[in-house]
């Protein structure tokens, strides 16, 4: 679903490496944030389809 996967954590690699990684991935990060409502909508749509499929397969409800 094109979710942003985090890169190195605050203790991974050298300072230089982390800075380089952050700068390199800045456009990708920004694009993920801009796209997040669309991703959320797609996820929701996918979930609805899956639930409908499961409802057909196992129609019984227990509360």
């Amino acid at each position, binding site marked *: 679903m094109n979710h942003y996967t985090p890169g190195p954590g605050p203790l991974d690699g050298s300072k230089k490496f982390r800075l380089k990684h952050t700068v390199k991935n800045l456009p990708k990060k920004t694009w993920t944030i801009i796209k997040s409502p669309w991703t959320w909508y797609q996820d929701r749509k996918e979930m609805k389809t899956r639930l409908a499929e499961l409802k057909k397969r*196992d129609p019984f409800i227990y509360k």
Partner: protein
Amino acid sequence: MAKKFLIREHHPYDPTAEYPFNFLSKLESLNSNPKLSKNREISSQWANSDTEENYIKTTEMGVVHTYKADDFYYDLNKHGFRCDNFDTMKSGLKSVIYLGCSHTFGIGLPEEDVWAYKVHKKIEEKDDTTYNYINLSDYGNGIDTYMHHMPYFKKFKPSYVISLTPDITRMIMPLENGYLSKMGRWVLDDDTIMKDFPNNRLKTAYSNLLLAGDNFFEYKKQVIYNNINSLGEILNYKFIEMSALLEDVWDNQKDVQDRYKKLMEHSEHENARDNSHYNRTYHTVLAEKIMHKLKENK
């Protein structure tokens, strides 16, 4: 402080724990059966999804019910299962354990119309002996509950363990307060369920598992079934399983299929009392199919 999860002591799926904590919450009208057997502890006319309200509503909608409101009761033993008290059973006899969901519990049906009861009679007839009838099913059960029951199989001395497998996506998850919750797709369908946990991380985790497809659940099923099979080699019982889902029940064999179709033709007007679960003729079909599997397995 680490939380103590209710795994063994007074655990809802421990068949030897008397009065598990969710025992009374699932029944609606307690001790309503005037002819309650001595081997049972408690009875109820209605149950969780088979309610009086639902019965009246469907009757008003024009549904012709096969069973009248007081045709049968849910008579449970003191462990909360729909079979005789375990301590009153004959200790010298071997037993047959039935595992499953509400179809095996028999929601909407009298006990003698449930597939498990029919299979039990047929097995007794086939082997020409008497077995103890142990029905460890409950509604909303998934195959996770089988794992909870497994440590107690030895006590029942089973000759057969028969499962009508529920949908594999059902599972048990421990809630934040330590209680175990039966998770199914209905948890995500209806916001009123688990309303005490509005932003429940378990719900999110479960929805992500569902989105990931059936592989995880299929894997879990295979692990559990391999365990039950291995235990069977030690305790010397046969494990037979069949899917409870409608689409999986039909055989490819033509003669068997034709016989099922004939049976089903007569059952169109029949319904379970909750107007949702399988009717009694369908249970006959299930019983025949399981017996077919059992004989094949020999």
